């Protein structure tokens, strides 16, 4: 399935199993937050940048990924600077920058379906607590199925409301959207049962 942020490629990171990548990412974040050193934080940035570049996805894509977080990190730095600790600010920003780079590298090289399969596997041990991985898998698939359906319903409703001049009225847009998609949800639940699937 080629939906989501995944960018196809043939790098080493693309070939690595999703579980290994996720494990490494968690380990890196624990290490960076456990070591309070500014030097380590700063040193981690070029390492993370190199990991990202190894995916072969190029810098323009990176800039697109980092535009949102960049503003946030600026805000964090300013608050530290105002509190009189520029060094703390640099360390905090460096830590976030590294982790955001590494996490982006994982997301960009792992298809959504592979991530979903990993989640189902990771949830396996939670079965005694009442978590059913198969149900989680079904919920993920259904939600992905619903998103384009809702977008299409929304388009139709906006058109219909525009015809009577209500297309800027939140109630006139959201209430029919909720009610129509609920009808779809009820039918879909029937359809799942009609196919003899009991969850």
């Amino acid at each position, binding site marked *: 399935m080629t939906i989501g942020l*995944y960018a196809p490629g043939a790098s080493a990171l693309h070939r690595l199993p999703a579980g290994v990548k*996720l494990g490494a990412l968690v380990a890196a974040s624990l290490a960076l937050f456990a070591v309070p050193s500014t030097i380590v934080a700063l040193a981690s940035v070029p390492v993370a940048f190199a990991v990202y570049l190894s995916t072969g996805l190029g810098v323009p894509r990176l800039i697109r990924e980092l535009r949102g977080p960049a503003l946030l990190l600026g805000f964090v730095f300013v608050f530290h600077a105002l509190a009189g600790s520029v060094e703390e600010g640099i360390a905090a920003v460096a830590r976030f920058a590294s982790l955001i780079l590494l996490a982006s590298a994982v997301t960009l090289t792992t298809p959504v379906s592979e991530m979903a399969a990993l989640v189902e596997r990771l949830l396996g041990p939670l079965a005694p607590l009442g978590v059913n991985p198969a149900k989680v898998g079904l919920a993920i698939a259904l*939600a992905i199925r619903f998103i384009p359906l809702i977008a299409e319903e929304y388009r139709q409703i906006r058109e219909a409301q525009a015809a009577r001049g209500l297309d800027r009225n939140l109630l006139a847009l959201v209430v029919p959207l909720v009610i129509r998609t609920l009808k779809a949800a009820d039918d879909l639940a029937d359809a799942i049962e009609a196919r003899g699937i009991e969850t």
Partner: protein
Amino acid sequence: MIVTSMKGTFEMTRDVSTRDIVYIALFAALMAAVNLVPPIQVAFLPVPITAATLAVMLAGCMIGAKRGGLAILLFVLLVALGLPLLAGGRGGLSVFFGPTAGFILSWPVGAFVTGWLTERNWPRMNAVWFFVFSVIGGIGVVYLIGIPWLAMVAKLSLFDAAKGSLIFVPGDIVKAIAAAAIAETVRRAYPLMQAAR
């Protein structure tokens, strides 16, 4: 009848039926759809004003604590899997390693709390109560988790973290008003809690 069905929903602690799963998936997808509405970027604010918490409030008000909380949790999971569903097309694991991860992780809890209060008070629900419970779950809980998280991971003081976050409260109040109006209209138009069973 609506009252008994609400109670039934609440008492159903473990078992999640096929219909529940479909409703959970639907509200996760509705949250994604709401986020596709372009965010309003205010100059010099680090986070754009987005509709995300509107969906958190609506999920709690409309499908209750367990299903509402799970719906938003499913949405958060979809983001983690790499779907670009957050405002501005953001998504993937990186958002969970940024300074505002606490806000995102607080959304399922917020939906659960709004839903729990709604279920507990279902017979008397009206727009005012929907507003109050939306404020408690969708604003109170979200900031109660998001601000300390921000302070901790960005090594800021609680006061600084709060100062940076509170500029979003006016927008959040507007969203709570919208959520209350929508939830009340749907409550009267479609016996949702009953149909949701």
